[in-house]
């Protein structure tokens, strides 16, 4: 199975869709295909029914949170300064992330091939978090998309029954996001250290019970 081949197959059959191959540096070599949300449903149906091999089995659906990450790297560029070409070191700010991603792992049952990794990205992490649901194509995505909605806050348009799966319905936040803050549900931590210790101390500071603070060390 060649990802390039599948990409050109999709491009030939789904007009107007934009695809991008996301390389994967790890030894697993599972590169993935970034699909634009507008055409995702058509791409999905094509992969299930028309492509060769047919990817009729959607195994895994999951979300990934990529918060905004700014990195500054020093880059050497050639510039003309006072008419003379010089190599100048410049700090280049690059920002990556600031989107939520949903990942589908597809397999072909007939030809026993896979995984084909599809990805979709939201516009940002706060407002534009809508993506099309692929449950109409692969029913196996039903619970898993609900889980992604629950834990990451991606809203799947076209999902037949989009409710929280694991958390209760009154719950408001999305626990799998990287910036999620745990509630202060401290009870008793005799062996606390690192993060837990900090939280324990914060809890005691908030509660102002000096008798227990000794216990928290």
């Amino acid at each position, binding site marked *: 199975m060649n990802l390039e081949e599948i990409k050109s197959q999709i491009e030939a059959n789904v007009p107007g869709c934009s695809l991008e191959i996301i390389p994967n540096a790890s030894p697993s070599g599972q590169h993935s295909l970034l699909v634009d949300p507008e055409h995702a449903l058509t791409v999905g149906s094509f992969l299930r029914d028309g492509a060769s091999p047919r990817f009729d089995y959607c195994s895994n659906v999951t979300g990934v949170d990529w918060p905004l990450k700014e990195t500054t790297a020093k880059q050497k560029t050639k510039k003309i300064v006072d008419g003379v070409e010089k190599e100048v070191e410049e700090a280049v700010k690059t920002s990556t992330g600031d989107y939520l991603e949903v990942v589908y792992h597809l397999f072909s049952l007939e030809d026993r091939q896979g995984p084909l990794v599809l990805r979709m990205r939201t516009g940002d992490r706060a407002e534009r978090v809508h993506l099309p649901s692929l449950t109409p194509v692969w029913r196996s995505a039903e619970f898993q998309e609900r889980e992604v909605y629950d834990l990451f806050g991606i809203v799947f348009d076209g999902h037949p029954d989009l409710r929280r799966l694991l958390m209760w319905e009154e719950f408001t936040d999305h626990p799998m996001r990287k910036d999620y803050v745990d509630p202060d549900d401290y009870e008793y931590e005799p062996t606390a*250290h690192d993060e*837990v210790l900090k939280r324990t101390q914060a809890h005691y500071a908030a509660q102002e019970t000096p008798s227990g603070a000794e216990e928290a060390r």
Partner: protein
Amino acid sequence: MLGNGIIKGLAETARNFFGSYVDKERLTTVQFPEERLPQIEGTRDFPFLVYDGDDWEKGLRCVSCHICEKECPPKCIFIEKSKDKKPDAVGKLQFYPVRFDIDVSVCMSCQICVEVCPFDAIKMDVEFELSSDDRFGGLLHHKDKLAKSNEYYHKIHPTEAAAVDAALAEDREKEKEKQKQAAAAAAAAAAAKAAAAANPPPAAETNTDASSKEETK
């Protein structure tokens, strides 16, 4: 014939019922508190600290390096390192744990602390009747409760303990060899120094003596 399958099944239960009077294979119940199965050698449940010799406070192998504390997945270990050094079982000066607590209610018996310990100081116990009416303190084991002798270790895991002892003896032999060589080198250097200086200052003499004594100890 209808009912054939039911009769066949009933014959099977009858075989098991009457078989339980004659066949040990078919009567597997053990009346627990009165009757106990023999201990399986590889069993593990909670960690304990090994000490050499007779005095648990002197003989603890733990040098409070904090590795197990960091690697413990549920973070159930709390160690406080000593400010001073004390000689260990073989007389080498080492740090020791002022506090070593394991919260047994948090520990999940995964054995990772044992795997990462470079000093063979923490091992897995087989003691499982640890219930207590104190929900918090009763399940927080301090180092006096955790310390168990090497003989006990040999009793519960004979094969493993023998291998550990052999490895430790080899290490100590090597260490001794190294120290001897170092001491010999130091003595030779001191002798050369003394020979070089026509009138060696008495303070230097005592100094080298003391240090070499300590090293050979």
